[in-house]
Structure formats: structure tokens, C-alpha cells
């Protein structure tokens, strides 16, 4: 396959950046998208040019490090697939492919396709944890969890924090990420003590980072490589409503 790539090049946070075209000949349809970029980078390095910087780590779709907007779609055209698990057979010979970084105020570009996603870390730090006793692992059956709750919590826990939901959202909102992180804990008995402070703190952090609000369009869930459902945002909203009604910490009646 011969491809034309138009890639966002930006030397650093202060560079305005631009789209640059590259020809990539002899692409195997069995390559992953990142391997195709590796081939381009090998050539750029040999030619003495700066290789295209992009984030990647496990390359098996479970770490959440990779992520780029491919032809306007976060993680590219395949559903429930990260960019590293996307293969070149899904593209046509001679196609022009536009590659851009996640675009959000809260995700400033560090270089080329690499963005700083530490805003997500700060949202999690604002409440995405439980107070667990340390020491030997507790007996697994000591605390019973309904199967349906365990399944829904696991569905949310599958979030790898890649940021595709923000990249796809017309409002630049991180509500799907926040909803996944909130509902993954609030559905389980272990998550109950901090349930109110968690949701209020995480939404405060979400807004403080400069993400937009949710308008229930569903772009996020369409590109989510882990298929986090849009309904989890409803669960987040419900938790927030409940938490803000008793946020002054009055004891239970």
C-alpha cells in the first residue's frame, strides 16, 4: 500500500504547529497503525529529520497510552479499537490519512501527537480512590456484591483513561471518563464511604481543568475503545444530584 499522511507537527508547547504531508510507500496491510508510523519515523531519522512523536506503550490495547485522531475519528475508523490495535488493512491503497493529536484545552500538546493528559490524573486524585485497610488481602467472599453491580462496575473499570472521549466530544468534555471512574467505585460496597465526596470532588476537578459540559450527544461512547456506555453518565448525574443535596456532611438519619 502507498499512503499519503498529513500529520500534525509541533516542535513544542509554544510552537503554533501545522499539518505536514508525508508519502509512505510499501505499507503492509498487516502492520498496525503505530508500526506504519514506526516505518515513517525510521525513514525520517535516516534522512536526519525529527521523527513524529507519539505516545505508545503496551501496543496491545490495554494501557491507554496511545491515541491520535485519525481522519477526524479518535483511534481511527474501527469501533472499540485503540490506535495500536488498528491495522492498515482498514485503509485503502493511495488513501490520504489525516493524523492529529487530541484537541482540548486541558490536554496541551507537548510535541507532535503527544498531549499532556495529567488533567485525568488530577481528576482521579480528587476522589477516584477508596479507603482500604492495608495488610493481608481480605477474604474475597467476606463482602458480597450483586452480580449485576459487579458487572456494571467492571464495565466502568475497563476505562483505560486514553482520552478519546474528550477528543471526540464536540464540547471537549471528559464526562465519560469521570463517569466511568465515579461509577466503577460507587457501585461497589467498598466505594460507599467516600461516595458523596468522590463525585463532588471529581466534578469540581473536571471543571477546574477546563473540560466542557456534557450534552448527551454520544460521540464519546462511539469512539471509546473499551465501549464505556453513555448510561454511566446518567449514573454520574444521579450520584452528583444526591451528593450535592447532603454535601454539608450531615449525619445519616
Amino acid at each position: 500500500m502507498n499512503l499519503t499522511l498529513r500529520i500534525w507537527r509541533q516542535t513544542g508547547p509554544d510552537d503554533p504547529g501545522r499539518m505536514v504531508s508525508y508519502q509512505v510507500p510499501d505499507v503492509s496491510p498487516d502492520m498496525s497503525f503505530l508500526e506504519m508510523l514506526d516505518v515513517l519515523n525510521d525513514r525520517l531519522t535516516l534522512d536526519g529529520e525529527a521523527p513524529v512523536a507519539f505516545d505508545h506503550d503496551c501496543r496491545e490495547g490495554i494501557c491507554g497510552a496511545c491515541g491520535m485522531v485519525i481522519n477526524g475519528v479518535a483511534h481511527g475508523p474501527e469501533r472499540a479499537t485503540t490506535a495500536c490495535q488498528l491495522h492498515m488493512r482498514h485503509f485503502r491503497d493511495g488513501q490520504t490519512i489525516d493524523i492529529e493529536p487530541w484537541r482540548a484545552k486541558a490536554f496541551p500538546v507537548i510535541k507532535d501527537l503527544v498531549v499532556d493528559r495529567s488533567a485525568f490524573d488530577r481528576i482521579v486524585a480528587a476522589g477516584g480512590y477508596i479507603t482500604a485497610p492495608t495488610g493481608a488481602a481480605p477474604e474475597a467472599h467476606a463482602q458480597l456484591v450483586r452480580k449485576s453491580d459487579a458487572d456494571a462496575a467492571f464495565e466502568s473499570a475497563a476505562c483505560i483513561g486514553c482520552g478519546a472521549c474528550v477528543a471526540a466530544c464536540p464540547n471537549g468534555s471528559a464526562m465519560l471518563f469521570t463517569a466511568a471512574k465515579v461509577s466503577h467505585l460507587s457501585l461497589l460496597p467498598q466505594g460507599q464511604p467516600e461516595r458523596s465526596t468522590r463525585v463532588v470532588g471529581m466534578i469540581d476537578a473536571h471543571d477546574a481543568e477546563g473540560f466542557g459540559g456534557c450534552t448527551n450527544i454520544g460521540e464519546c461512547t462511539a469512539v471509546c475503545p473499551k465501549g464505556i456506555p453513555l448510561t454511566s453518565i446518567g449514573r454520574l448525574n444521579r450520584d452528583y444530584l444526591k451528593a450535592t443535596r447532603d454535601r454539608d456532611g450531615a449525619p445519616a438519619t
Partner: protein
Amino acid sequence: MHWTTNERSPSVWRVTALSTRSPIRSSIGLKIVMAVTGILLVLFLLAHMLGNLKIFVGPASFDHYAHWLRTIGSPVLPDTWYLWIQRAVLGIALVAHIWSATVLARRARAARPVRYAHRPKVQGSYAARTMRWGGVIIALFVVYHLLDLTTGDLNPVGDPRRPYANVAADFAPERWYVTLLYTVAIVTLGFHLRHGLFSAFRSLGQQTPRGEARARALALGFSVALCAGYLLVPFAVIAGLVR
């Protein structure tokens, strides 16, 4: 989570305790304001649509209905008091609805300072992507509609005691452009409600997949029925069923 080569201060620096910000100003709080005020306005739209259908009963009945609206609550309340209370509540709801939409739209714009070079159409419905401009069109129409059929300034008859005559003159066949404008506004409203109603349920905590299917079906059915109810009147005037 993410390791970056960024050499600024550690990525986790603000472990937020509860902020002192009012929860209404959060992005979820604003959505809840939109949902509650939107539902209030929808209930008014439903009552208004059903009231309009009185026109098919006859001129006397329609005019009597319009007069009765001014006497609700009597003798406990003086004449037209109830009407003014309702207008005030709806006005506040409308202002709150537009205010929260504006704040959210401005935040959304600020959240993406650099646009995508390649951006296909949003995969969501047409209704979802036209919420903001659709809302502006509806707001402009409401202003025209009040000047037309409430104050009568833009109406060819404009007699507050004869609403039936006002409506019949308004949608007369030679004033086809009024009907066209009305139809465009009502269809825009239908699209607005199709996404807006579902979105309101979601903002208020709708959280199951089956409930989502139901909420979407209800929003679509309600919007179609509301549009049909409103459009019946002008097209009946054009067809000569109301004269």
C-alpha cells in the same frame, strides 16, 4: 497512569477537597437547571397546544377559552393575576434555560481552542447537533409570536377580544409566509425537544439501557405529536376548515 516527559511540577498537585463553589455552577448543575426549566417549558407547550385545538370547536368556544384563561383563580385572585404569575414563572424558566445554555456553550468553546483540521460530521442525531442554533431560532420566533398573537402589533386584526379572528386572519392563504415561518419554527422546536427531552431525563439521572431506549422513544413520540398538534391549526386555516 500517564507518564510524560513533562518536567513541570508533579502531575498530581491539587487533591481537591470540596470546593466552596455552588454546585449549580458545575457543568452537571447547569445541566440540571436546563433540564428542570426545559421540562417546565415543555409542560406549558403541551397545555398551549391542547388549548389551540379548541379552535376546531368553534369561534365562540375558542374566544371563551381565551377569556377564561384570564379569569383562572378568580375569585381568590383578581382577574389576569394567575396569567401574570404563569408568565413570570415561564419567563424566569426561559431566562435560566438560556443562561445555563450560554454558560455551557462558552465553556465548550473554550475547552477546544485549536480546532481539528479534519472533522467529519458528528455521528449523533441532527437534533443533537442543532440544539444551540435551534434554540436561538426558537427564541426569535417566541418574540415574533408574542408580538403577533399576544400583543397583536404584527397581526392584521390584532383585537385581543377576538382571538379566533386574529388566528384566522394570521394564517390566511395570502399570508403564506407567516405559515411558512410558523412551520419552520415548530419543526425546529420538534427537533429541539427530540434531543432535549431525552437529554433532560439523562441529566436528571436516567441510567439504564432500557430506560434510555424508552426515554428516546418518548422524546421522539412527544415531539412528533406536539408538532402535529401545533401545525394542525395554520393548515386548517389554509384549507378553509377554520375561517
